[in-house]
Structure formats: C-alpha cells, structure tokens
C-alpha cells in the first residue's frame, strides 16, 4: 500500500486578537489507499485543524509550516482550479449537518451544486446521480427527499445526505470530523456501517476524527492520538485499546467508563487538556502524567517508531505493556524502573 496522504511536520498558527497562536505542532501522519485512520483527542488537541489543513479550509491568515502531500501533489501549494479539484477529491463531513447546509435551498440544489458548476453535468443527469448517492447511503424514496428542505429531515437523515453529497465528487479521501457525535447511538451505528461499506466498495480512504476511542477502534485500521497539537501515538486501532504506547492514550482508555462493567472508581486524569499555544515546554502531557520524570519536563519529545507504531514519549520503551496494568502503581514503578 502506498500512502495516499502524507502529512509531515505540519505546524499551524492562527491569528487570534493580534497574536499568533499555535494550534498544531509538528503533526505527522500518513494514510494509505483504502485505509481508515482514526484521529482521537480532546478539545483543543488540534484534530479538527489537522483535517482543515488537509482540505485547505484553514481560516485566512493562518500560518502553515511543514508539508501535506495528497496523491503526489503538494497540497499547500495549490490554488485556483487545482485547489477546487483537490477539494473534490478530499471530501469533508462535519459534526453538525445543519450548520453546513443552506436551509432555504432544496436537498437537490445542495447536492448537485458542485456537479453542475464544477463539472458542468446537465441538471437531469446530476439529479439521477444525487438520487443514486442517496440510495447508496440507505435513504428510501430519494426522488421525494431531493424535493424536500433540510428542516424536513431528521439529523441522522441529513447527515446521510451530507455523506451522499460528499461522495458525488468521487473523492479518494473522506475527512469525517466528529460526523456521528451529534447523532443518537443507533443512528451513529447506522452511519458508521454506511461509511464502512463505502470504504470497502469504493476503496475510499478515511480520516475519522472523534473523541471516542472505542468508536475509532471499531472502525479504523490505525489510530493516531493527539494531545495539545501533537500526535503522541499512532498504533493499530485494536492495539491502541489493549496495549497503548503513550501514557496519555492509556489514560484515555482508562478514564472512559465501560458499558460492560462498573468500575469502583474511574481512573481520572488530573488537570485539564491544554491547547498547543498554552502547552508547557518539554513533554506537553507531563504535568498530567503519572509516569513523568524531570527529564520529560525539560526535553522536547520526539515521535519515534516503537513496535509497529510511533510514540512521542521517551519512557515508552520502559513503560511498554505496563500502562494498563492495574497492579502497577506509577510511583512504585518509577522507583524500580528508573532508580
């Protein structure tokens, strides 16, 4: 498998109130053809900004360093017609469908706009393609749906319309940004199943952005975890859950209550998640990390290969396999392992 998308050392700064604020620092990830990559993190971790940078949807004035290559082209250098073509090949589905659809236009107008303006597809043909796309995402009576307005559709139905619309331009990569978060769980399962089918049928690659580690684990091949604007771990999705490499990944796994068993007490992570611009020097997770040593706080951590994954933690090799062990109390392990 060759990499369809390659993001190298991507750093993004946004202008907020006259000063530059870093939102992503040195993000590196790649997605192969047909691969689904999960991107997990808490608020402010930079996961949505990563997607926006890939789709070239960052706000005007954003400072970008590093590189983004998609199907061999340098995404950051694109402009004009090339950029429009890029955005057709990289489709984005956002969290709140109602915020991304014109409420006074019919579903058909919304779905066929880019086909008719960018590809000059005749109206009747565009309508047929839209109807077919709706059917593909499990929407009955597409002819009627195309005549309806957004307010006549439920949230789950509307999100399926967004996915169908994204597919009309025959994208190679789908950026799904918390696209099921606002949906009910049964609808979420439905939408995830549709995405899964599409991926298999069309060989579509996917960047699946979510705060839900379990969801990412269930539908993705690999998962990257972001914290304070940096990727701190990339591992096989099932491995991340069972045997994480980074203390933050392990903390996320443990903090989440489990529907199959009741914990005496949840293992909460002290403190709160920070954004890149407010992150401390050295390891950004160190202030909240039970395994942090003095050297973690003073040394910038580097994303390094370990096992089949990558991790940004100098202690990862020492801690490997022990992060989820309940008998392993962090303070004791410090003394024994690093005395």
């Amino acid at each position, binding site marked *: 498998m060759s990499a369809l998308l390659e993001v190298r050392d991507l750093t993004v700064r946004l202008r907020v109130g006259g000063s530059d604020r870093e939102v992503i620092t040195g993000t590196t990830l790649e997605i192969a053809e047909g691969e689904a990559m999960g991107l997990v993190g808490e608020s402010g971790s930079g996961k949505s900004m990563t997607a926006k940078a890939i789709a070239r949807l960052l706000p005007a004035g954003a400072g970008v360093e590093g590189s983004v290559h998609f199907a061999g082209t340098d995404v950051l250098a694109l402009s004009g017609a090339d950029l429009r073509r890029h955005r057709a090949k990289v489709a984005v589905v956002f969290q709140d469908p109602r915020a991304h659809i014109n409420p006074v236009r019919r579903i058909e107008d919304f779905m066929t706009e880019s086909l008719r303006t960018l590809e000059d597809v005749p109206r009747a043909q565009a309508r047929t393609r839209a109807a077919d796309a709706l059917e593909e995402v499990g929407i009955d009576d597409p002819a009627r749906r195309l005549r309806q307005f957004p307010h006549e559709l439920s949230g789950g139905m509307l999100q399926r319309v967004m996915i169908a619309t994204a597919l009309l331009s025959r994208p190679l990569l789908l950026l799904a940004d918390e696209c099921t978060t606002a949906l*009910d769980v049964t609808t979420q399962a439905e939408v995830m199943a549709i995405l899964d089918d599409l991926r298999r049928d069309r060989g579509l690659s996917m960047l699946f952005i979510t705060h839900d580690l379990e969801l990412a684990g269930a539908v993705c091949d690999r998962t990257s975890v972001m914290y304070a604007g940096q990727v701190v771990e990339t591992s096989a999705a099932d491995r991340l859950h069972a045997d994480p490499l980074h203390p933050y990944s392990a903390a996320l796994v443990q903090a989440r209550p489990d529907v199959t068993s009741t914990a005496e007490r949840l293992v909460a992570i002290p403190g709160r998640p920070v954004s890149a611009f407010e992150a401390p020097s050295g390891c950004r997770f160190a202030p909240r990390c039970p395994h942090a040593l003095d050297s973690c706080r003073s040394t910038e951590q580097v994303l390094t290969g370990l096992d089949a994954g990558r991790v940004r933690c100098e202690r990862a090799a020492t801690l490997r396999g022990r992060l989820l062990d309940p008998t392993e109390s962090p303070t004791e392990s410090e003394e024994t392992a690093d005395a």
Partner: protein
Amino acid sequence: MPDADGPVLSVSGLRKVFGTQVAVDDMSFDLAPGRSLAIVGESGSGKTTVARMVVGLERPTAGTIVACGRDRSRPARNAGERTRRGREVQIVFQDPYSSLDPRQSGAAAVDEVLRVHHDHDAATRRRIVGELADLVGLDSRQMSALPRALSGGQRQRVAIARALATEPKVLILDESVAALDVSIQAQVLNVLADIRDERGISYVLISHDLAVVRQLTEDVLVMQRGVVVERGRTTDVLDEPQHPYTQRLRASVPGPGWKPTRTLRRPA
C-alpha cells in the same frame, strides 16, 4: 417529612402532551433515598421532559409527582412553596456554557443560593461555599473567577456546587457529563459518586450514554417515544436487555469486536 424508608421521589401516571404530540405517557417510578436512577433513551424519547416536569419547569398534563412527601404536580401557590420545591430537587443541565450567569463568579452564585434558601450569617455562608468548592474539587481562585475564565469541566463543577447549596434530596443530572472531554468526564463522575456517598443524595441521571449510566446508577428506565419500554437494575438491563429497543441501543455501543450494522435497506 416522609418516613425514612419511603421514596424521596415518587412519580405516577405522568403524562405530557405538547399540542397533538404525546411527549411522555403513563410514566411511573419511585426513587429511594441515596439511590440513583437513570432514564435513558434517544432524542425525542421524552426523557428530558420528565426531568423538566420533576423540577417544575413543565406542568404535567396528567399524573402526580411527589417529592419529599409533598405533591408538586401543580404550580406552587406561593413563593415559600416554590422556594421549598427548589430546595428539595435541584438540576444540573447539559451545557455549562449557558447555565451560569456570565457576570457572576462561582462563589457568588453559590452564595446567592445560600442566601435565598438558608438563614446563615456571612461567615457560615463563606464556610459552606468553601466546603462545596472542596467537594466538587475547585480551588478558591477558580471559585472567584467568572465563568468565561473556566473550562467546561470547571463550569460544570460550579453548576454542581450551586445545585448542592440548597442541600437537595434529589439531584437531576440532565446529560450533565455529556459535553465534557473524556478526562474531565471521569473527574466529574468521580465527584458525583463521592457526593452521593457523603451526602446520601438521590440522583436521577438523564442520559443517552449507557457507559455513564452503568458507572453512576443502580436502576434504569428505558424510554422510547414517551413510553417506558424496560426497567430494572442497571447491570441486568445492560447485560441482558429484554426489550428489542434496549437490545438495539446496547448493540449500538462501540466496544472491542463491535461492528456497526446496517438496519436500513441497502441497494443491490
């Protein structure tokens, strides 16, 4: 006051109709002191309408709500009655960004509630504000900050501290941890468990998140389109759901080995 063993909250035959829409139909449950009950369901199931009726934000079309031995299914006749109802049952809403006064610090918000509901002098109120801050895990600097200087999790702690200031017998948690980051959600869930152990308060948790429900509650009601379709011990209902709708809810929760399934038609 009710006898010690009686339910602290008792709802029977509760019904709410909006226009032609039946939001809640024939709902009944009892909540014992110190117990936690979850009401789960998806959007439109009527779970939030139940919560709003219990706190008095909606008037039931039919049925009775009895809290601490006193009926509250009709509007309060006077200010004293209204205040007492507020004292007995409190609510923490989902969105900590809209439920706090942006011009009032956490300490001031809690102090205001104490002044309305209790007859304490300033020194006592200050002490109680401090105790509540400790209970929810906020320091004095955070308590004296305006909401805009606080994170979502910190705001939600302020909202919990404010709700606890009346010393309620029942605390309604309407999706109160749903908007929080995973790491913060765990902190708040632990705080809620501590508070229950310490104060013997009863919770009604309105939630769509079955893992949170399992963590915090002993009993559960499953609602679908305004009707309770299943009820029982939380562990039993989640481990062996009986009603097809509960089974579908449970099967929709991602976990190890989970594969999403399509229920809708797929073109050939």
